């Protein structure tokens, strides 16, 4: 009888407001150190959004130093975040092209989640004439002069392409855009590819960078952003009664998923096992999640069925937890519906309270942190949780980390439009099925 293929995590990489080093970032997350700071983008003193999770200037310089001139020319900010965290994950897994034992790179692929591409207004402003009309003819004649960060210069599959080219990943290569669920869908799809035998190793994750003129008003227009003038570190407060919206952040998260026997054969260190994945659509409204979290329930249930785990085997949920009024109550309702009484026994926390909302990269960064929770039996807190919301009455690990056995954990990601994805990670045991 053919043995079922199992999928394990053998490498992790991050580039987030907490830094570029995995271990240091994890320790900061456990300590509840916020990565949210006051906005420092030039000419943005009057931006309605002032609290953001930026990759620090020093870290950005380090990324550019690593990426070198040719990649900087070819890749915009999100692509460089992706390249850095891919390098970290591949290195962590011992799969660098020149360092790895001989592995078949035709069986090594990449799936990267990316987000919105428009980021500035210069491409309109440059061709507005004195008559206050856009000069389309002139634009056409001079189109090679579009801005260096223009949407017209970068395809959404550029991060996946440059990663594959840099690290010689010749297998399956795809890009996913499902808003804030993009990278969770990437992880789930990579997991399935390996499980069904279409690949042995997959680099999966996501990258996003919307701290730019368009991005700063994007979620304000949608009335989803926190515009609070409070201390920046305290603005992202998922599940708190006084939460006021999402806090935008930037960066990337990457993981190496690998077929178990392939990993064992080459002596790789295994963080955890990917046990299940599910996705769903709300088919409700483009502008809001279903108030009872029907789609979220369905996504979690599908992942549980896929994993073969009972709901009470889940010890931790890394929530989507955006700090918006609608998401946090709907997600809480969905967790209660799926887990029943066990919902009150398991731990729930939101990484977004610490690192902000990495948008298309959020599911990947949170997958990395959730994997570490399963590996280390530690759960980072939900910080800034000070005012109880009667509709959010679970154990959100408020403000202080928790040390507890994490047999299995579930990570939720829900995208605008109603696309939901859930990934389940469990402790790896060599002989377990």
């Amino acid at each position, binding site marked *: 009888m053919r043995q079922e293929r199992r999928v394990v995590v053998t490498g992790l990489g991050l580039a987030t407001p907490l830094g570029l080093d995995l271990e240091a970032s994890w320790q900061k997350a456990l300590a509840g150190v916020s990565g949210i700071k006051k906005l420092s983008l030039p000419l943005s003193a009057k931006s309605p959004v002032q609290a953001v999770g930026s990759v620090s200037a020093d870290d950005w310089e380090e990324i550019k130093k690593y990426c070198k001139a040719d990649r900087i020319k070819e890749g915009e900010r999100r692509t460089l975040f992706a390249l850095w965290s891919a390098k970290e994950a591949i290195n962590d897994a011992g799969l660098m092209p020149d360092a790895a034992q001989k592995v078949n790179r035709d069986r090594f692929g990449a799936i990267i989640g990316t987000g919105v591409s428009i980021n500035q207004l210069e491409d309109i402003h440059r061709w507005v004439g004195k008559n206050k009309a856009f000069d389309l003819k002139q634009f056409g004649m001079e189109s090679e002069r579009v801005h260096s960060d223009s949407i017209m210069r970068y395809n*959404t599959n550029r991060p996946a392409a440059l990663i594959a080219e840099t690290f010689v990943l010749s297998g399956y290569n795809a890009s996913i855009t*499902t808003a804030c669920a993009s990278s969770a869908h990437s992880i789930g799809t990579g997991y399935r590819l390996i499980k069904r035998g279409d690949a042995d190793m997959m680099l999966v994750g996501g990258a996003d960078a919307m701290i730019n003129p368009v991005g700063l008003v994007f979620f304000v227009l949608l009335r989803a952003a926190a515009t609070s003038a409070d201390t920046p570190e305290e603005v992202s407060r998922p599940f708190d009664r006084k939460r006021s919206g999402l806090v935008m952040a930037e960066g990337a998260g990457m993981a190496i998923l690998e077929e178990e026997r392939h990993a064992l054969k080459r002596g790789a260190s295994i963080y955890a096992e990917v046990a299940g994945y599910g996705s769903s659509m709300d088919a409700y409204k483009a502008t809001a999640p279903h108030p009872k979290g029907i789609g979220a329930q369905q996504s979690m249930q599908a992942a549980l069925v896929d994993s073969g785990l009972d709901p009470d085997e889940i010890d931790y949920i890394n929530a989507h937890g955006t700090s918006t009024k609608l998401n946090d109550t709907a997600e809480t309702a969905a967790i209660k519906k799926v887990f029943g009484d066990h919902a009150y026994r398991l731990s729930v926390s939101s990484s977004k309270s610490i690192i902000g909302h990495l948008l298309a990269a959020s599911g990947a960064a949170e997958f990395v942190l959730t994997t570490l929770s399963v590996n280390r039996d530690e759960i980072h807190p939900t910080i800034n949780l000070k005012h109880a919301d009667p509709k959010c009455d679970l154990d959100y690990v408020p403000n202080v980390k928790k040390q507890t056995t994490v047999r299995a954990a579930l990570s939720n990601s829900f995208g*605008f439009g109603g696309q939901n994805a859930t990934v389940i990670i469990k402790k790896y045991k060599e002989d377990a099925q």
Partner: protein
Amino acid sequence: MQDKVVITGVGLVSALGNDLDTTWKNLLNGQSGISRIDEFDVEGFHCQHGAFVRGLDPDELGVRGKGGRIMDRHAYMLLKSTRDAFRYSSIDLEVTPPERVGYFAAMGMVDYHVDDLLEAVINATDDDGKLNYEKFFSGTYQDIHPLWPLSMLNNIHFCQVAIDLGIKGESIVFCPHSPAAVDAVMEAYHTVLGNKADLALAGGVSENISPMSLTRASLVNLLNNGSSGCHPFETPATGTILGEGAGVLALERLSSAKQRDLPALAWIKGYGASFGRDGEDCSPSEKAISLSINDALTRSGLGPGEIDLIIAHGDGTFDGDRNELKAITGVFEHCIDDLHVYTSKSALGHSLSGASAMDMVLGTCMLKHSIIPAIGHRYEADKRIAKNLVREKPVSREIKNILINSQSYEGQCASIILGKVE
């Protein structure tokens, strides 16, 4: 024995018609959907031709209210073709629970309409003509419609279609070039094969042809600036022409189709996907394309000699055609005499994320009718493949297996094999 995954419904919107029958008829009649662009002032642009989808009226499609504010032409194409596939496959959500119907699509880059942002930009411009972001942040950003951001998320357009049809199963949006539609069909295939859904709709839609999409393609020298056509495998290559369109397939297990008493239009036999490029080429390398084709052959259990027809990517670009031609002539070296090669781009333009999905839909027609449309003959094709191309008039022949190729402009490629269900 493992079940097969078959196609039981199709929907197509193209520059040659807003439904499959019209497009197919026009293709067989040798018509081209490529014309001079008149949707916007194209005078300043190097390439002035495209294959536009025309006449998709949102009112007729029943798109109103917020949906109309969010959705754009590419969303209407996806909506129409998904509805057509849904109906073709007689999907009834009273019978099949909406949670058991999956949806997977490829979508392209989402470009903005200048008019949506122009007022905010003008009002943020100082008297000296400089763009003042402080003004923008202080309030002129509010001149942008509050729903505009949603229109910039391509999955929102996809979700609007899911809302319209009421489908709630597994879903993903891949992007932004032709292989993404093969990725979408692959995931739909495994979703139904693995019993995570009873049915799945899968395909792709192009981005809108716009000043931005023309510029994006022009910046990497993809377009044919010199003439009005897209001439696949021309020697020398002259470039591609952008097209619009969407193709959607309804997939289910063969056992399910039999239970529902539905004829299977085609059987999805195999697929392959890979990455690789040479130097600064943006198209995938010969090696990558060969790997993708060989993987598809291996998965299908077919030898090269069992492929009757290749619907090539054949976009008319220098790198793209050169590498694909080398891959085809390499993999099929010993059986090339019996092989026909077709490409839809001469008639429909290159619909990027919609292209391979449209080719899959057209492939089901070729299997059904045993006929291959002609791609036209008013140019000189590379002699290594000229005899295989269907040039002057449609060719009637028995077709059992079709290989469909797709390539991105970043180095990704994917192939899929459709077979006739006996």
